[in-house]
């Protein structure tokens, strides 16, 4: 047994061929010592754990083309730096990762390097996945290797100049990439730490809920919100009480939103609804709760910041604008969202006091009016009610009026929107 441990230890740190060989010996030795079925059972358990973790990391979400085969890659992520095409991660030897071993997988996840040592672009969120433990990484690898291999050769990524100049990646990594598994904060509860591990690591929430600088580096784990790269959505701050910070919410309500996509006060739209459908609804209630506990603790209670626009005295033209918006509201919105913007709990979200309506970025509200949409279809909300796509009916000017109205009525104080704002949102449709 000692020999096996030593051998395995060596294998982790050294050459690939000997690793495979030693692993083979180790596996055989274990299989011989144990009951015939145990190794298979352990492996099955490992795979199902890996499947769960792959859900938590939503690997399939990116590594599946729209309408394509799961995990076979080919999804295009268009960013300011070019178009990234996700690779095939099924165990196909030619086009997938069939020839990879656990070390290769760990190197990708933890160090952001491909099997051949090539540096990966951080479109693959290894900046977050680096926090995942080796044990979890191995389980995910086992799961991926247990999938049916799919032969699918995907197009290569098309990274723009100068970002395609590889030495820049070295520089970028030196500046922005902190390699290392999540370290528990001993002053916090086990539940909080579990939540932090999931949010910061596999959940890679910070990949979207962050402001990226000119070279695409994100704020450090602050979840302070920002425009989502490649899609025209704003991922609200999870730390600000003015946006989506959970400070004033109960743990139960945050958990409900994460697990079902809807709560009494809010509904997740766009990319967040997708994440909930693909990933979060499948997590255990304990893990969802742990994430909620951690997220709630992030809220900074700085009530000194107030929304930028105050209308203590309204000018005539302003009053007139809001009146026109009110008429559009009455005609198209009131039937579902109510005369006082109160909504219907768990069905139609309230607009009065809804932070995503009044937050500084009007992007999501304009988008919702233009495109409509359905909340995620989940186990907890299997037959959601929908919002019509009003761009089929309203003109930009009318959308601006009605969005201005809901941002500045019933105590909401969110600032006015112009037709130009609406047009700009349309321009970036994804």
């Amino acid at each position, binding site marked *: 047994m000692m020999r096996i441990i030593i051998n395995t230890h060596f294998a982790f740190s050294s050459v690939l061929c000997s690793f495979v060989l030693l692993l083979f010996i180790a596996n055989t030795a274990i299989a011989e010592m144990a009951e015939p079925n145990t190794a298979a059972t352990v492996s099955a358990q490992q795979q199902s754990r890996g499947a769960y973790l792959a859900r938590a990391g939503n690997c399939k979400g990116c590594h599946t083309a729209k309408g394509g085969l799961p995990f076979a890659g080919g999804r295009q992520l268009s960013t300011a730096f070019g178009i990234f095409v996700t690779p095939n991660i099924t165990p196909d030897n030619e086009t997938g990762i069939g020839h990879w071993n656990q070390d290769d997988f760990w190197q990708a996840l933890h160090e952001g390097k491909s099997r051949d040592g090539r540096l990966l672009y951080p479109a693959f969120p290894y900046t977050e996945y680096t926090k995942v433990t080796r044990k979890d990484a191995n389980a995910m690898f086992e799961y991926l290797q247990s999938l049916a291999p799919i032969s699918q050769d995907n197009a290569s990524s098309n990274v723009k100049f100068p970002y395609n100049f590889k030495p820049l990646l070295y520089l970028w990594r030196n500046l922005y990439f902190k390699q290392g598994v999540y370290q528990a904060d001993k002053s916090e509860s086990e539940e909080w730490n579990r939540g932090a591990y999931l949010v910061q690591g596999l959940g890679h929430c910070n990949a979207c809920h962050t402001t990226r600088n000119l070279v695409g580096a994100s704020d450090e784990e602050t979840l302070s919100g920002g425009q989502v790269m490649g899609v025209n959505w704003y991922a609200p701050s999870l730390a600000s009480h003015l946006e989506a910070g959970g400070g004033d919410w109960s743990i139960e309500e945050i958990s409900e939103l994460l697990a079902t996509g809807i709560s009494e006060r809010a509904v997740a739209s766009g990319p967040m*609804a997708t994440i909930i459908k693909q990933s979060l609804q499948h997590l255990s209630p304990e893990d969802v709760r742990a994430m909620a506990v951690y997220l709630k603790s992030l809220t900074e209670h700085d009530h000194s910041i107030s929304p930028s626009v105050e209308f203590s005295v309204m000018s005539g033209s302003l009053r007139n604008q809001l009146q026109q918006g009110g008429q559009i509201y009455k005609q198209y919105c009131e039937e579902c969202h109510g005369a006082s913007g109160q909504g219907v709990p768990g069905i139609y979200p309230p607009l009065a006091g809804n932070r995503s309506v009044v937050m500084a970025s009007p992007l999501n509200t304009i988008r919702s009016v233009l495109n409509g949409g359905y909340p995620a*279809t989940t186990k907890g909300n*299997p037959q959601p009610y929908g919002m019509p796509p009003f761009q089929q*009916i309203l003109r930009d000017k009318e959308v601006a009026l009605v969005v201005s109205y809901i941002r500045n009525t019933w105590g909401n104080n969110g600032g006015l929107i112009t037709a130009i704002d609406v047009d700009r949102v349309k321009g970036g449709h994804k």
Partner: protein
Amino acid sequence: MHFILIGILFVAHGAFADENAPAAVPDTMAERVKACTICHGDEDKLGRDAYYPRIGGKPAGYLFNQLRNFRDGRRHYQPMAILLENMTDDYLLQIAEHFSSLQQPYPPPEQINIQSDEVKLAEQLVYNGDAQRDIPACSACHGDALMGVEPFIPGLLGLPRAYITAQMGGWRNGGLMRGQVPDCMSEIAKSLTDEETNAIAKWLAMQQVSGKPSPSSTLSPELAQRCNSIVMNNGAIK
């Protein structure tokens, strides 16, 4: 004193609650698909930028496949793709069944000028096809009454000429359903001449709607095979 205060608060709250009470929302599919019916009403509708066909009464399997095709990017129309992007197959099937169950009146036939040789050409293709060019009769797949075949094949009557022409154009330019092989309608549309396409579109739009979709047993095995792109591999209707 405290009691009075609480009493007043209660009354005040009660009055306030009335004004702000959430409306009772019907627990129905009709309520759930209001996002659809704002465009797809009881009849065909010409919007500012688009034409919205009536979808009520169409075969459930056909509607289900179109919903999945829009969502998964095989049929391209961005507003539909965005609307459906976070929906499951189960829910899309329920929506398809809901619309399929609606009985809505059809519009009267269009008044179009058509030459007698166009009528002859259209009727020849609609009922007999052209075996030499491997073009099956429309009626072979879409039913003798041209009202479709349950559950996957749509009817051809009660549609405006402009819509039929646009759909044929879509198939000729690479197929409405991209990435599916074989794509039977794409093959057929590409084989037809402009003259034939126009004659068929005119003739179909002029017919009085009568009859219902035929049962699935009327489709010959060869045509079911040829048109297997309409029956999705991973989810024939339950």
